[in-house]
């Protein structure tokens, strides 16, 4: 066990959180070191998996029904990698953003990192609940960090939503447990059938997780929460935390629930996703505050992810859709964090969050301007970028499946994103500029590095997707075999 990166991926941030809590004045240092170690551990895990394939580790030598086990197929390192990249970037950015190195940000954020790593490694739907709950609570604390009334209100609303979502999820877990006496995903997969209990469990868990993922029409809480948090927190929430519940949802629908239910629910998910793209895009066009525009863009992107369901239900396009969405996940995580950080820089210099006050901000902060532009390219799905690769695959999937309407949604989403991004960029480019403020170098270059990574990842798709395909995750079991 000592030689397994999985255990360290949970223990290390947890220990760092405790350390940062006890030794507050060195929080920033502990945070950055922990993020770097985390990155190294993920690299180690990926290296191991490239030779061994899927990994299953039992903690303390007890096997599944009794003990806790860690499980990693291609999807786990994919998400862990995403968390690790954002972890390092957030830590470096936050080092400049929070002037006080002993900010509460550090211990809470490290707690969040531990919870999210554990979530991506567990194979047990109850442990997943625990991680989700921990994640939700630390997010609430992070949103409330600034202490101003708007932030507190947003945090409280987020707390209720998060609680409600977790409760629904827990209800589903208990239904499944009472019916099958197990919480292990692989065991459940072989046990569940289309009984009323399973259907009810599926419904509860799905609603709970959709609420946390903020899929239209359950997205109402996301924009205020993400917009009122401090910039590094917004970056984390939009880039990473939303994807935690999405991850669990994907695991459940592709690996637990029977294929027949999957096939009947898939079009509904697709429809909600499409509605999210259009609605979120229009809302983003109407916002007057920079961070709200970026936050609504997250609503849009979440919509894209759900196009996976209808397209994966079609045997010809399952692989295209899976890889496309997984690449969009990566692209969005990186580009959205970059966008929030760059927007944070603008707000810091301008002293206001309103679009109309952004005049000339681009001249004062050319690097942040450029990062926002590059991040926008990836979010719009324009080449060359990671977002383009993802969209290309989804385009191909929808046209191959003969479901051309998703193509229209994707194209419209791209154009809407272009429109709302240029609402931020064009006043920033306008003259005249009288701003002369400076920002720390870490804040200046972190979003740039992330945005550049978002573009470069457009060239690494074959290598990265190879990692994702280890152990062939996200294949609906019965849909392929038992479907029509």
């Amino acid at each position, binding site marked *: 066990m000592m030689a397994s990166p999985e255990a360290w991926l949970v223990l290390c941030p947890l220990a760092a959180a405790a350390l940062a809590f006890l030794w507050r004045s060195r929080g920033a240092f502990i945070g950055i070191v922990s993020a770097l170690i985390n990155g190294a551990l993920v690299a180690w895990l990926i290296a191991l998996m490239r030779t061994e394939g899927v990994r299953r580790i039992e903690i303390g030598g007890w096997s599944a029904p009794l003990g806790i086990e860690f499980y990693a197929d291609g999807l786990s390192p994919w998400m862990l990698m995403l968390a690790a990249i954002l972890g390092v970037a957030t830590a470096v950015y936050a080092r400049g953003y929070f002037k006080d190195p002993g900010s509460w940000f550090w211990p809470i954020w490290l707690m969040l990192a531990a919870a999210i790593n554990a979530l991506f490694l567990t194979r047990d739907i109850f442990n997943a609940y625990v991680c989700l709950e921990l994640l939700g609570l630390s997010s609430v604390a992070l949103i409330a960090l600034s202490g101003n009334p708007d932030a507190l209100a947003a945090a409280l609303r987020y707390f209720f939503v998060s609680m409600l979502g977790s409760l629904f999820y827990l209800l589903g877990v208990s239904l499944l447990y009472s019916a099958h006496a197990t919480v292990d995903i692989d065991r459940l997969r072989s046990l569940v059938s289309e009984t009323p209990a399973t259907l009810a469990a599926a419904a509860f868990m799905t609603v709970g997780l959709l609420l946390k993922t903020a899929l239209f029409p359950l997205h109402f809480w996301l924009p205020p929460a993400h917009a009122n948090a401090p910039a590094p927190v917004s970056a984390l929430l939009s880039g990473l935390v939303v994807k935690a519940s999405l991850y669990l949802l994907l695991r459940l629908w592709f690996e637990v629930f029977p294929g027949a239910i999957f096939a009947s629910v898939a079009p509904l998910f697709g429809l909600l996703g499409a509605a999210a793209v259009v609605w979120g895009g229009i809302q983003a066009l109407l916002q007057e505050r920079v961070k709200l525009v970026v936050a609504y863009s997250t609503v849009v992107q979440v919509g894209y992810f759900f196009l996976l369901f209808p397209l994966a239900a079609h045997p010809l396009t399952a692989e295209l859709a899976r890889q496309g969405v997984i690449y969009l996940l990566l692209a969005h995580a990186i580009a959205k964090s970059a966008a929030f950080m760059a927007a944070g820089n603008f707000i810091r210099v301008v002293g206001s969050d309103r679009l109309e006050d952004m005049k000339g901000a681009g*001249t004062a902060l*050319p690097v942040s301007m*450029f990062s926002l*532009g590059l991040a926008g*390219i990836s979010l719009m799905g*324009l*080449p*060359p970028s990671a977002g*383009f*690769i993802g*969209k*290309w*695959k989804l*385009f*191909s999937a929808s*046209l*191959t499946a003969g479901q051309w309407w998703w*193509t229209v949604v994707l*194209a419209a989403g*791209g*154009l809407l994103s*272009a*429109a709302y991004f*240029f609402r931020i960029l*064009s006043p920033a*480019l*306008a*003259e*005249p500029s009288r701003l002369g403020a400076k920002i720390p170098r870490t804040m200046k270059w972190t979003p740039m590095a992330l945005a550049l990574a978002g573009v470069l990842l*457009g*060239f690494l*798709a*074959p290598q990265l*997707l190879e990692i994702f395909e280890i152990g062939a995750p996200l294949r609906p079991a019965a849909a392929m075999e038992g479907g029509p």
Partner: protein
Amino acid sequence: MNLQESYLYFILLASLLPAVIIFFIPEQRHRLRVFVNMAGTTIKLVLVFVLMAGVRQGKVYESRITLLPDMDLVLHADALSLLFIGLSAVLWFLTTLYAIGYLENSPHRSRFFGFFSLCVSSTVGVALSGNLVTFVIFYEALTLSTYPLVVHRGTPEAMKAGATYLAYTLGGGAVLLVAVVWLRILAGPLDFQTGGMLGDLVQTYPLELRCIFVLLIGALGVKAALVPLHGWLPKAMVAPAPVSALLHAVAVVKAGAFGIVRVLYDVYGVDPAAQLGVSTGLAVLAAVTILWGSLRALAQDELKKRLAYSTVSQVSYIILGAAILGPVATIGGLVHLVHQGLMKITLFFCAGNYAETLGVHHIHGMDGAGRRMPLTTGAFTLGALGMIGVPPLAGFVSKWYLGIGGLRAGQEWVVAVLVASSVLNACYFLPILYRAWFREQAAAWPEEHAGSRFEAHWMLLTPPLVTAALCIAAGVCAGSDWSPLEWVKMITEREYAPR
């Protein structure tokens, strides 16, 4: 990677690297920026000549990077791409010189030249693309890198023009992507191939291929300013003169026209396009654009706007020539890609000089400009006469081949379009020349910048003189080995060679 492949990357890097460096050069380091700029342009010129010599001997340069397991980024230099790159390399060199003079002492020069070089890199990428996917990538990059140039001045008018530009081009880009994905699913890897890559698909999917063709032309037609998708071009006039010059002669508009030529010849192919009946529709659309652009140009009093509508009209000559689908018309269309570039950039350089040196922006204010600026007006005259098609200037050669090509292909109406357009060209260019040369100066120049040894700053004066000389050379020496005409004949021979 062998040396031949690496040439392709060197050509891209010759403008990409300066772009990145220039972004980091502090505003006041004027000399350093000029050095980086000029070094990039010079290196690129040399590289292009090396490649041209190779392609002439029948070599093909190609390099692949795998983007996805089933999708390659292909750089590929054939005779057609080098026609475009050669044009862009020469004109980039001159425009950079012009821009350095034009923007002297104005703010944000590092940003300007950075995006300027990015824009040229994307254009070169468009020219070097070896398949449609690569083409899309660079085509979008071109859209984005041009936007900051259009809005460079940051005035409300510029911001509005920029928004219009983006709305048109990003919309076109979205349609292009859909069309390319669709074609990709039907036809596989989409590598450009002389004579078309569709093969038997024409029989299998006639309807789908027609739809895709319409989508592709609709998307590329935005940049090529085909009527009714041309609305952004006259508005984009608010950009600084060197940007307009580059936009109209080399970068954006030409990328659209070049894309249409590629789609017609190297994706669909001459015979399949004729079989599907799509080329005739395109030819008619081009003819309408030619006439409509000229008519609208007549109505403009602002010099740059008139030139912009003239571009709308002239670029469609290229498309008309390509769409007639006969070897002679193809020669006329392709050679116009170069000729129009030379003539139009001359006109825009001159328009910039009038604005910069005299403060004259409108045609009614040009009375007597010929006496004040004889060299500039001389260059302008050559460009204008070339556009009208007066022999022996470059424009005459294009129109001659287009007309003969139309006749050979049995499409006599083309000649009528050409004659009508030439008459209109004369109607909107000759009054300008008359005012400039023969009218007396009516009032003092609005904003005269005197104090240089010549009629204008030498950096502003040299480029139009050189391009005007090239307009004459391209016409007079059309028969020589290195003329654009000979190069285009070589392309056409290869395209129509029996297979």
